[in-house]
């Protein structure tokens, strides 16, 4: 069931009625039934994977917490007889057992994800290797499997949960069915955001009274999400795919424009979908974390990644980057290098080595093809260059008396970051790495053949489509500018009721009239829904 369908609107309406009509203690049950119903709309076989993840994580969390409680009890009972060293040894023994449970859970669940996501691409590489080096045509057959809905998102969410339980950040959920709701909560299963149990649990399981303001606020957010998805992303998609599918036959300026438009398209698509998820969730009084914070206003690539897909970035930071960065072996290696007199280099080891792995994995998370790994590593290289060249950049700005806080410098950094991130997206738009490099080269060729009067004829696109998309992007830009000073919805709700209705009606009209519903159009396909 797509987020953008009458079926989904009806489904949410029925769920909302039941949610607020039934006794409050049943509210989480309504959400669980709704989530399972939503999930069942896809291939029922997918249930095997989500149930495996739910049950295995639940059991491992119970085993880990049980050991922690036994340890606490034992230390309490023997606090006067045990020496500090004995207590330490006992704790280390318990930790080792808990670690075994943790690792079993991680291996099983990340193993499932890796198998489903990378088995076929690995088979393809093995077959190619055998053909190239051994001239063998005995190919290993591909496995017949489709990626289950939301597997990357719920796997990351549950693995974050089990790691937090291991570190004793919060108590585990004791009710298996309530835990199943955390794993499968329907607004976030399709494309995130990736929630943390400690933050989500209070509003997910809490009892709520009907609140019209909450429904209204959620509805506004849904309509805004639909605007971003249907008016911006899907309109730009037709321009981008027209150009990129025959890039050799277009002037470089078209390709350059398609590159920048793709950035806007993917932002509209992904953040629009997240707006729908957050809006629906808000109607049920469940607070999901924000996933975007005006990423196109970022002044560096590091900042961009703190504002784009925030929950994935923070997941990688907490569960991959820091555990590696604070790993004793890496720290010792760094110290050794520093003691050899290589202070600057040694200090960078606990940051850059983990960062390399974070970007390698981020690339792999986005897709199984090698171009995503290249994309991830390019991000890594640009971030390292940005960090290392900062002193030089500071020298230049000081030398020419340029103020970092001036409008000119801020605009320069914002535009530079946007351009760099857009070019990196070439790995996303093109089918392979070579195609991405070719598209980059083509951006700067054939500018002389550009004729503004023939643009739409050459692209076989109606001019109106293009203008609507451009106006919508400008509208989005204005909205994001206003949002820097606080929530736009809060401002709207402070206006007279009649004005609020005018704004909402205008937005619904714009989405209905200018939403892209061309031939072959499939509103179901959110780009990030494929992960």
């Amino acid at each position: 069931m797509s987020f953008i369908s009458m079926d989904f609107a009806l489904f949410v309406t029925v769920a909302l009625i039941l949610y607020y009509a039934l006794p409050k203690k049943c509210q989480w049950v309504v959400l669980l039934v709704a989530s399972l119903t939503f999930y069942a709309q896809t291939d029922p076989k997918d249930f095997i994977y989500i149930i495996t993840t739910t049950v295995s994580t639940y059991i491992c969390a119970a085993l880990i917490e049980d050991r922690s409680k036994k340890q606490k009890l034992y230390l309490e009972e023997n606090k006067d007889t045990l020496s500090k060293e004995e207590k330490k040894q006992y704790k280390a023994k318990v930790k080792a057992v808990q670690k075994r449970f943790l690792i079993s859970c991680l291996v099983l669940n990340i193993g499932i994800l890796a198998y489903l996501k990378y088995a076929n691409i690995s088979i393809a590489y093995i077959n190619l290797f055998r053909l190239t080096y051994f001239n063998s045509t005995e190919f290993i057959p591909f496995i017949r499997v489709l990626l289950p809905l939301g597997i990357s998102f719920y796997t990351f969410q549950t693995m974050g949960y089990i790691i937090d339980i291991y570190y004793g950040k919060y108590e585990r959920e004791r009710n298996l069915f309530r835990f199943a709701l955390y794993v499968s909560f329907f607004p976030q299963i399709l494309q995130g955001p990736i929630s943390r149990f400690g933050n989500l649990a209070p509003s997910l399981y809490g009892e709520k009274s009907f609140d019209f303001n909450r429904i209204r606020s959620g509805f506004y957010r849904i309509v805004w999400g639909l605007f971003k998805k249907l008016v911006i992303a899907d309109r730009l998609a037709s321009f981008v795919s027209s150009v990129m599918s025959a890039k050799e036959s277009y002037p470089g300026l078209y390709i350059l424009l398609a590159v920048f438009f793709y950035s806007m398209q993917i932002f509209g698509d992904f953040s629009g979908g997240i707006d729908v998820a957050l809006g629906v969730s808000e109607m049920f009084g469940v607070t999901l974390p924000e996933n975007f914070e005006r990423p196109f206003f970022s002044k560096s690539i590091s900042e961009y990644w703190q504002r784009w897909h925030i929950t994935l970035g923070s997941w990688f930071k907490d569960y991959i980057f820091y555990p590696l960065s604070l790993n004793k072996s890496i720290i010792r290696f760094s110290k050794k290098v520093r003691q050899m007199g290589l202070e600057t280099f040694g200090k960078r080891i606990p940051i850059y080595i983990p960062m390399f792995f974070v970007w390698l994995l981020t690339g792999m998370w986005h897709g199984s093809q090698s171009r995503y790994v290249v994309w991830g590593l390019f991000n890594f290289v640009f971030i390292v260059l940005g960090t290392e060249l900062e002193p030089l950049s500071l020298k230049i700005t000081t030398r020419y008396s340029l103020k970092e806080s001036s409008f000119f410098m801020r605009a320069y950094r914002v535009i530079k970051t946007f351009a760099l991130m857009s070019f990196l997206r070439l790995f996303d738009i093109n089918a392979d790495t070579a195609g991405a490099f070719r598209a980059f080269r083509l951006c700067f060729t054939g500018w002389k053949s550009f004729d503004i009067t023939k643009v739409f004829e050459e692209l076989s696109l109606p001019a109106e489509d293009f203008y609507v998309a451009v106006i919508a992007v400008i509208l989005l830009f204005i909205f994001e500018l206003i949002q820097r000073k606080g929530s736009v919805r809060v401002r709207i709700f402070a206006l007279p009721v009649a004005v609020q209705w005018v704004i909402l009606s205008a937005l619904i009209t714009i989405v209905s009239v200018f939403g892209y519903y061309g031939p072959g159009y499939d509103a179901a396909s959110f780009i990030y829904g494929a992960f």
Partner: protein
Amino acid sequence: MDRIKEILKGVHPEVDYEKEDHLIDKRIFDSFDVVTVVGELMDEFDIEITAEHMIPENFNSAEAISRLVSTLEEE
């Protein structure tokens, strides 16, 4: 506390750790410095510092770091 100050001096000798309480907020310490200090603390005090401890409030001053070390030593 003295050992902590020694470790900090090893990273930025020019800072007055008696007075300075915005090491991170004022960007006196960057991420490379913080991880270097964390490594030294883990070695020196045999403690485990994890992601949840990596917040500016824990590293803004010698005193804040000392508090963090004491908490982790008790665990």
